[in-house]
């Protein structure tokens, strides 16, 4: 059986020292081993940006695509081979700006993949511009007088988009992060895990300390029920989205693949491509 070490490769990440993404990478590797995967069973599909490089840093099948499109690529992979565990991953700009359309529709569609967003509230690889999760008033190179657009409440959006697994975590809480990724992988359907992963170079506001002071653990809220969507929405609104833990799970909603009529119960990629002659004759006859 594989251990987390088997999910390591020889590639040295090009992230800045202290970047939150290192812990996310380690958490994915540990979670993959903990749920019993072998490296060959895992595909990590990533977008563009600092965090998008993650597909190259995990010993697994990796696909580093184009900006904002990790989700459609990942959904295509899963549709082709349901035996693979598919993790899509990228940053807040990738998933919530250029790729937002895909994010909402992937949640509606509910194909069984896990989407891990490394949210640092800023564009890092382009050297410090505002992001959809930047707070109003946040000063960056592209918002020198402070952002005048409102910040996106991504967890609320996930709830209203029908997402069946909504979770948020913090990159330094390695143990909790590993556990939540394991749960996300095991959830049958689309799971969204937003991980606050501070950018130590360009974001001097939302720092490690800032998150430690502002994030509330759902474990500390008495009577919190992650199966209660209304309570989830209310809690997010009360705390301005700054909560960590499993926010909502719908364990009964069937995944897209369970719902598609006729969809192959084994990996489609392993099927014979040839059409039997009698079938072909029958198909032709429909045009006569």
């Amino acid at each position, binding site marked *: 059986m594989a251990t987390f070490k088997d999910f390591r490769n020889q590639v040295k990440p090009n992230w800045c020292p202290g970047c939150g993404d290192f812990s996310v990478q380690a958490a994915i590797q540990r979670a993959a081993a903990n749920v019993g995967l072998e490296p060959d069973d895992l595909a990590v599909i990533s977008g563009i940006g600092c965090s998008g*490089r993650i597909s190259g840093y995990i010993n697994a*099948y990796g*696909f580093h695509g184009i900006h904002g499109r990790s989700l459609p690529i990942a959904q295509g992979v899963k*549709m082709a081979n349901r035996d693979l565990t598919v993790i899509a991953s990228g940053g807040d700009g990738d998933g919530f700006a250029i790729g937002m359309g895909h994010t909402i529709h992937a949640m509606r569609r509910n194909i069984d993949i896990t989407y891990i967003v490394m949210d640092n509230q800023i564009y890092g690889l382009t050297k410090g511009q505002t992001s959809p999760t930047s707070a109003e008033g946040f000063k960056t190179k592209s918002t020198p007088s402070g952002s005048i657009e409102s910040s996106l409440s991504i967890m609320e959006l996930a709830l209203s988009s029908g997402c069946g697994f909504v979770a948020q975590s913090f990159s330094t809480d390695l143990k909790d992060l590993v556990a939540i990724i394991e749960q996300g992988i095991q959830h049958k359907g689309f799971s969204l895990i937003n991980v606050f992963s501070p950018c130590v170079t360009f974001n001097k506001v939302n720092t490690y300390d800032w998150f430690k002071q502002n994030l509330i653990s759902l474990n500390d809220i008495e009577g919190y029920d992650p199966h209660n969507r209304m309570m989830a929405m209310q809690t997010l609104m009360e705390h301005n989205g700054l909560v960590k833990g499993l926010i909502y799970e719908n364990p009964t909603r069937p995944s897209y693949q369970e719902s598609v009529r006729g*969809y192959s119960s084994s990996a489609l990629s392993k099927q014979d*491509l040839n059409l039997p002659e009698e079938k072909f004759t029958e198909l032709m006859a429909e045009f006569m």
Partner: protein
Amino acid sequence: MIEQLSWKVGGQQGEGIDSTGEIFAIALNRLGYYLYGYRHFSSRIKGGHTNNKIRVSTKEVRAVSDDLDMLIAFDQETIDVNAHELHSRGIIIADAKFKPVKPDHCQATLVIIPFTEIATELGTSLMKNMVAIGATSAALGIDTATYQAVVEEIFGRKGEKVVNNNMEAIQRGADAYTASAGESVQTLSLKKADGKNRLFMIGNDAIALGALAGGARLMAAYPITPASEIMEYLIKKLPEFGGTVVQTEDEIAAATMAIGSNYAGVRTLTASAGPGLSLMMEAIGLSGITETPLVIVDTQRGGPSTGLPTKQEQSDLLAMIYGTHGEIPKIVIAPSTVEEAFYDAIEAFNLAEEYQCPVILLSDLQLSLGKQSVEPLDYNKINIRRGKLNDQEIAEREDKSYYKRFELTDDGVSNRVIPGTKNGIFHVTGVEHDETGKPSEVPQNRKDQMEKRLRKIQNISFQNPIYTVAPHEAPDLLLIGFNSTRGSIEEVIPRLEADGLKVNHAQIRLVHPFPADELKPLLQAAKKVIVVEHNATGQLASLVKMNAGYGEKIESILKYDGNPFLPGDIHQQCKEMFANGHI
């Protein structure tokens, strides 16, 4: 007796004009006539003039006819808009309800039949279409019983009474025509057809069936005219084979999802038209640099932007060849008939896997939507080739390091591994990368990988890259086209020969990489060359000149008003060019 009939039915969109044409055409196809349809329609659902023009012939035809023999009119607008196409022996059969009037200049015979009144008497005015079909049949000397089977197939679910009512509507229409038409009945009697079984389908049906026969099991697509029929057919059929169609949120998702599932080992297509292809351009580049097979169908329509969404055009050609930033290997195939569309769809998947690159199957609106008779397709010509896909060998390798998925090879093609294969882990990235897929900016590596990718398509194997009919060693004229213009060009050649010209024909089927070596001798032999295409800037002519030369001999006949070429358009312009000493 006539060997060929040009028939048109017109009315308001949403009035059942299409189904009238459909029932008429299916019945005649079963009698063994060759049919070729052209639907005039607008980008709206209800209202607005629409018509369905169907050519019926005892010989194979692949073009819209120049004139019209018979016009079925459900409103005055149909007569006003279309009467000019009718020749002097033509017939208009019109519904008495709108008190039809023939335009002054029109010499055709007007026969007025109470379509709506008869239908209403039989229970519902909806059956006026059937009354019209009956009247048509009487005019053509076709037995009304011909429709029995078709009517049963369409209305059988609604019960025997509905079937009988519809058949009675047809009979009443025929009787009414015979009673009121007089002598003109005989002039349009159709010569009997050969009775052979043929398919009656649109190009999009052939592409979809080809995809299925070619092993495609997934499709990701966003609806658009004139491509949607492909996804609509496959969503009905793919579940029988374990697959499905995912309707995505946009064309970017469609193309990238298709890349994901092709990467994971399932033949997957997407299909769209110009606006969708514009959105897919970045994904096409991703397929190119990551060497992931991808099949995209582009059914061209009028551009740019929303352009003429329901009209014929061939203006995506250069965008399909050169579109996407940067430089990638790409194959662009342009079938010229519905049969070719079927076989080329299969071949598109083979080439995409053999050369590990994007393949664009280029169609145009008239090829995609023009419903026509097609000889039965040959099962034995279906073959599936997956190229260098060596999963078994890779699974057995001892080395656990990253697999060299992008290994430099003589032909540029490297072994492909399907994710999930044991010991086959490799990385894929749209960033320039080394042989294992690791990002690399090393200049020599960049050069090696770029050259490797481009090398792949230098000598692609593609059967009949040019459809050629060249009976003359030294023709006066070589006519060149691509996609659906083949039918019009084929039809104009005998007319030009009757004018005393020797004419050869080349229809380019592989537009990229351009088959310059095959075309050059044809260009060399001809005194003059005319490239016939549906765009305003002569894109195919530019390609020919750029790749094969002979620019001094090459002229263009262009049409970009939204309507398909009629053979007469091409004939007239060729004659003028010769008369003016242009050629």
